[in-house]
């Protein structure tokens, strides 16, 4: 007989025992591999979603404004573009709210895609989109949500094309002016796959899409020939950052100033080029570029600013009635060399006037001076509109001293200095003005009309640049854009300027596309990155599964060790019959290895089934967790190999461990079998080592606990795992110590033997398997307890307290389209069009600007690449509220919200975030930085504070001033919080819904918002609790295995007890009690370790632990385990046990 044959014979002979071992080990391996597969499935599904939602687009340019649709052609014409990229599509993409004539539902988050039919394939495969005017296709999601059918009417609310910032005099602010309704007829409903699923946002797994014909739609919304999204397909299929860089370089060669929001106007005399903004005022970057281009051409550049005076009057005039109505006033900014860019204003005597006017100086033109009867030294008052802090229009006035009279010659004669103001400069008479501000046409005099006919909008007065800045600034702000044009001129008028194209070329070089937000993002690469590091459920699942995996590992080890133990006597026989110890070891290693391999292969299909079961539960039972996300099973070879390797290593380690224990045993001792060996071993096992381990682990856990509780210098997850792990090690080592060191007892009267003491000794006899069983149950109990300790009771959420998760706000509203006035004031609400001010009495409303970005909360399953940012107005920072769990050190007793003021020394922008989002979704932490794209390039955010359980889980928070400075004004306000007494809340909610209906408003009670977050968190916890339950299943499996094994091993012993007169009930009690001791110990250890691990969270988050429920759960588990033990024992302890004693 060869060793191989011996091995086969042994495997066959012990097939029943081996089958049980393999089955148990396979379950353990299945848990290990299954946990990895669940992670794979999340990542794979997100990856699938990421790839599916992008169609053929690898790069996307999403501009903050609009550019020429022809830019796509210009880009295609760039050298090398066709070879590397091939396809490009210019698209109009707008956010909208949608409804139907018969629906009371107005859905926000609707994306409108206006695309040429030939370019539609860029958005994904689908039916041809040859749509007639007013006809649209919608995707299935939107059709379902609005119950749309072909031929139905769809009404979209869209942001109206704006030609000036809303927070400026020339901006439009009321909903009627800023939102327009577009009525469409549904021509086709496209499936959500391919074209219908296209989205550039990772946080909308099931987008609501509307597709319209580009030409008709662009005309309809006054954006003919314009686009705001460019989509590019890369031939390589990679779409990486390097390609994005080359694409951006090509873009720089293709853009025109107009694409960058700048218009060049050359005056008829060709002496001057005016650089004007398409959005009324130039940004600082545009101004800088205009001046740099001028320097490059050798020209002078003068910044000019035009404002509108409602009245220019002598200061002693009794009312506006006597003044000049509706006049433009201009400021000319000095160039670096102190001159006004070559613009020379001269007095009536032909002598240049002093332009150094200071804050109180003013120059009147001859017409205005004559009309007012004013002369140098006189005081004049100017009344004007100023944008208030709430973005409403207020009337203000200033007094000036006339420094001189300007002759109406040169630039002061006509409207050279005046850029285009829609509704004003295009009017043929003043009475035809259609400005966005109130106008009293009755004040316009005939001579004013004459002036308009002769001089157009030529300024009647000149003020200093500082004064112009002040006029353009909103109340309380100093950084608003104020330059309406940059006037480019030669050193001398005689010299003239070069053709427009020359300066345009220079400006194109100076004005980088990225300076105005024209940057290609590698959307496919980003999306795949987001999918790779999804909202951490995959890694969180693995993390929380680690205790289950540990339990599974213990089970695998336990069973394989039991398998080797059975063969101790065989090993003794082999040694006694002349086999070398190495040969014996190899034989058993081969046998154990065979079992391990079989277990691994048997475990793989079980793992797939386990993962499929978990995913099924996630899709059906825990649907709130996933929302509309379609989770599919993905099986990767990597996970199978890793999981199998882990299972194999655990199994083999257990075999090696068991063999290691046997390595120095003599043949004689092995011949006594495992029981005899163990009896002898028990005499030698000391308590010292396990006690030492227990003490060290306990001390370390205590230190970590103190640091976490009082020092607050430790990240909660680190503290959780450190304390949990150390406490488990400490208590399990303590258990091993208690089980070790059998010592002779000295029974005395009254300290007699009992079944219970015998049971305890029984447990101590097999200390390794007892310890493993205890550890297994402890792991499961630990998971269950920590989950329960973190559970949030949505009914207990505090929304009334300022220090609660809602900060004392009762209502939260979000609009799809920005609201251009601050609803914090009655004036703002009135300007927004609210009719029922009574609804807001006794309430406090705060408005927030919101930057575009990804949802940073647990509601977004993907890793946000650029989190959404909310700007906190000064009133919010002043008010305070909410609860911080951690902040960076700040001086004195200042409110932590003050940390958001200004910028930090390293140039980063301070932000605050909700702890859960920052830690788990953004994978960041306190005082760490995140770099996100800003309006003018990347912006580094530093997290200076973490909020506890707040309603700010979807975004990061920074001061409104910083938001406006680094990210733009977001177009207006899109988030509103209302502090209202309970009896007023329904009124306010109704008023908000009614007033902001067209803006696609979503109004929710903050309790519902918090409840939604808590619901997701609780769903996560439910999933993890299920893992704990599975751990308990494994634990029960192990307990049953050990129990049956003990009974089998001790058949003779138990038979003897029956022979000695013990009743069957007593024997059952004895055997079950041994196991119950282990169950109780395991549950107690897991519970204590879990509570201590969760202690920092419970203390700091003031967690409302459901003690009764937790106690009930653990007691129920204990009761079930006892019942299972008794049942198993009752079936195993039968009269046939006597056969054992008889046969022996």
């Amino acid at each position, binding site marked *: 007989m060869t060793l191989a044959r011996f091995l086969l014979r042994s495997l066959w002979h012990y097939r029943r025992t081996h089958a049980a071992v393999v089955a148990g080990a396979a379950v353990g391996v299945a848990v290990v591999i299954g946990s990895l597969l669940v992670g794979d499935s999340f990542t794979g599904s997100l990856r699938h979603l990421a790839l599916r939602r992008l169609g053929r687009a690898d790069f996307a340019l999403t501009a903050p404004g609009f550019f020429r649709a022809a830019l796509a052609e210009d880009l295609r014409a760039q050298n090398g573009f066709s070879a590397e990229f091939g396809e490009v599509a210019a698209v109009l993409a707008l956010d909208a709210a949608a409804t139907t004539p018969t629906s009371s539902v107005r859905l926000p988050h609707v994306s409108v895609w206006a695309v040429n039919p030939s370019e539609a394939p860029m958005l994904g495969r689908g039916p041809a989109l040859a749509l007639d005017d007013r006809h649209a296709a919608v995707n299935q999601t939107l059709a379902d949500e609005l119950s749309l059918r072909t031929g139905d009417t769809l009404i979209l609310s869209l942001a109206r094309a704006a030609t000036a910032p809303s927070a400026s005099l020339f901006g439009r602010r009321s909903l009627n002016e800023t939102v327009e309704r577009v009525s469409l007829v549904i021509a086709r409903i496209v499936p959500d796959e391919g074209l219908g699923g296209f989205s550039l946002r990772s946080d909308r797994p099931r987008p609501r899409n509307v597709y319209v014909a580009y030409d008709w739609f662009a005309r309809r919304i006054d954006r003919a020939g314009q686009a705001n999204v460019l989509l590019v397909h890369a031939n390589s299929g990679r779409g990486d950052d390097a390609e994005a860089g080359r694409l951006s370089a090509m873009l720089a060669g293709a853009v025109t100033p107009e694409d960058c929001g700048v218009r060049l106007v050359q005056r008829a005399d060709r002496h001057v080029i005016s650089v004007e903004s398409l959005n009324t005022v130039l940004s600082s970057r545009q101004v800088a570029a205009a001046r740099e281009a001028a320097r490059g051409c050798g020209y002078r550049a003068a910044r000019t600013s035009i404002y509108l005076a409602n009245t220019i009057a002598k200061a002693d005039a009794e009312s506006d009635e006597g003044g000049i109505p509706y006049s433009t006033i201009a400021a000319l900014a000095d160039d670096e060399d102190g001159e006004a860019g070559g613009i020379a204003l001269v007095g009536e005597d032909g002598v240049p006037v002093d332009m150094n006017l200071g804050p109180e100086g003013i120059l009147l033109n001859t017409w205005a001076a004559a009309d007012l009867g004013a002369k140098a030294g006189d005081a004049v008052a100017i009344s004007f509109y100023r944008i208030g802090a709430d973005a409403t229009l207020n009337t203000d006035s200033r007094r000036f001293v006339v420094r001189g009279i300007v002759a109406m010659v040169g630039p002061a004669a006509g409207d050279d200095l005046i850029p285009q103001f829609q509704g004003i400069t295009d009017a043929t008479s003043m009475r035809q003005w259609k400005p966005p501000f109130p106008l009293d046409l009755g004040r316009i005099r005939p001579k004013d009309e004459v002036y308009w006919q002769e001089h157009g909008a030529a300024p009647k007065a000149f003020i200093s640049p500082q004064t112009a800045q002040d006029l353009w600034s909103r109340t309380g702000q100093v950084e608003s854009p104020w330059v309406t044009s940059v006037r480019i001129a030669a050193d001398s008028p005689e010299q003239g300027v070069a053709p427009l194209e020359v300066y345009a070329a220079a400006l194109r070089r100076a004005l980088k596309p990225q300076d105005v937000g024209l940057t290609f993002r590698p959307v496919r690469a980003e999306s795949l990155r987001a999918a790779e590091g999804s909202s951490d459920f995959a890694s969180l699942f693995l993390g929380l599964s680690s205790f289950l995996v540990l339990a599974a590992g213990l089970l695998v080890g336990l069973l394989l060790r039991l398998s080797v133990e059975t063969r101790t006597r065989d090993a003794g026989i082999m040694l006694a019959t002349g086999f070398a110890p190495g040969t014996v070891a190899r034989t058993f290693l081969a046998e154990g290895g065979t079992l391990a391999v079989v277990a691994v292969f048997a475990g793989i299909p079980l793992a797939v089934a386990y993962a499929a079961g978990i995913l099924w539960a996630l899709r059906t039972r825990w649907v709130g967790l996933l929302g509309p996300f379609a989770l599919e099973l993905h099986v990767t070879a990597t996970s199978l190999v890793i999981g199998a390797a882990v299972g194999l290593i655990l199994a083999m380690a257990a075999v090696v461990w068991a063999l290691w224990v046997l390595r120095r045993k003599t043949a004689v001792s092995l011949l006594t079998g495992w*029981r*005899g060996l163990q*009896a*002898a071993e*028990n*005499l030698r096992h000391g308590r010292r080592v396990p006690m030492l381990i227990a003490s060290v682990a306990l001390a370390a856990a205590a230190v970590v606990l103190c640091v976490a509780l009082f020092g607050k210098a430790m990240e909660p997850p680190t503290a959780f795992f450190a304390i949990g792990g150390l406490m488990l090690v400490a208590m399990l080592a303590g258990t091993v110590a208690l089980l070790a060191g*059998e010592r*002779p*007892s*000295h*029974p005395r*009267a*009254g300290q*007699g*033997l*009992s*079944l219970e003491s*015998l049971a305890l*000794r*029984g447990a*101590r*006899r097999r200390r390794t398997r007892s310890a493993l069983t205890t550890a297994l149950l402890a792991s499961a109990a630990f998971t269950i307890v920590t989950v329960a300790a973190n559970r949030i009771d949505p009914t207990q959420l505090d929304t009334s307290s300022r220090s609660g998760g809602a900060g004392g706000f009762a209502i939260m509203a979000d609009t799809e389209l920005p609201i251009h006035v601050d609803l914090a004031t009655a004036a703002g609400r009135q300007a927004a069009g609210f009719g029922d001010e009574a609804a807001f009495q006794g309430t406090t409303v705060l408005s927030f600007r919101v930057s575009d970005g990804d949802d940073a909360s647990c509601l977004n399953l993907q890793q946000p690449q650029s989190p959404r940012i909310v700007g906190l107005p000064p009133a919010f920072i002043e008010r305070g509220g909410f609860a911080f769990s951690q902040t960076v050190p700040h001086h004195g007793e200042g409110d932590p919200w003050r940390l958001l003021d200004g910028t930090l020394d390293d140039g980063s922008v301070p932000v605050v975030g909700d702890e859960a989002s920052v830690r788990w979704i953004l994978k960041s932490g306190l005082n760490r930085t995140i770099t996100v794209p800003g309006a003018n390039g990347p912006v580094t955010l530093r997290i200076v504070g973490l909020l506890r359980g707040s309603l700010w889980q979807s975004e990061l928070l920074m001061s409104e001033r910083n938001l406006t400075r680094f990210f733009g004004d977001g177009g207006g306000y899109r988030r509103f919080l209302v502090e209202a007494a309970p009896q007023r809340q329904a009124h306010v909610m109704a008023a908000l819904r009614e007033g902001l209906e067209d803006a696609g408003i979503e109004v929710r009670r903050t309790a519902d918002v918090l409840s939604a977050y808590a619901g997701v968190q609780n769903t996560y916890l439910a999933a993890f609790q299920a893992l704990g339950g599975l751990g308990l299943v494994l634990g029960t499996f192990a307990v049953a295995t050990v129990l049956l094994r003990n009974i089998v091993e001790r058949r*003779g*012993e138990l038979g*003897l*007890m*029956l*022979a*000695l*007169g*013990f*009743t*069957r*009930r*007593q024997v059952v009690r004895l055997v079950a009690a041994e196991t119950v001791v282990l169950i109780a110990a395991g549950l107690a250890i897991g519970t204590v370790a879990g509570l201590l691990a969760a202690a920092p969270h419970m203390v700091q988050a003031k967690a409302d632990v459901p003690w009764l429920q937790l106690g009930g759960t653990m007691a129920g588990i204990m009761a079930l385990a006892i019942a299972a033990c008794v049942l198993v024992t009752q079936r195993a302890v039968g009269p046939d046990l*006597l056969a054992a*004693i*008889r046969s*022996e």
Partner: protein
Amino acid sequence: MTDASTEAGVLRVSQLCKTYSSPAGPHGVLSGVDLGVEPGETVAIVGASGCGKSTLLNIIGSLDRPTSGTVRLGDVDVAALEGDRLAEFRRKRVGFVFQDHHLLPQCTAIENVALPTVASNDAVNGLRRAADLLSRVGLEGRENDFPQRLSGGERQRVAVARALVNDPSLLLCDEPTGNLDRATASPVADLFCEVAAERHVMLIVVTHNLELARRFSRCLELRDGRLSPVHQP
């Protein structure tokens, strides 16, 4: 039915048969065994391996059931006992000593001896009695030793003490010296005879050892399923 725990008396085995099923058909091991044992009487049963000696002992001790026939100890029909009454019978009326001592490794010598009293919730008194018995079997001072620290003979003495702890009327020993060498076996055999005489118990010993068997008052041979006297030389 009389009280199984208190009724004393003689052992009467009548027409005891035991048949085992096997693939080859029923196999009779005992074929009408008759045996009567008086209190204080010591009986040795010898026979070839596999002849059914241990089966007979197990049936007498209520560890097995006969196919037919009766076993009565006093007024108790042993084969008719069930459940707790059967356990009580084993606990109070019978003492077993096996070839393998069957001591619990987790219990000390005295605890092993006192083990049957745990079943009757009388461990306190049991420990006292166990100490006396250990002293009686020559193991004074070894009470707190675990079985693995005892020699084979000492373990068997502990087993004897355990069999006597509840003061049974019937002591059944199945090859009690089978694992012992001659030098060790002899004192153990002496011990059986001594305690049987002292306590006036019925002693039935199954053995291969004719030398041992000759020490008892009667020696019976089991052959072909029946008992027959062995004439002492």
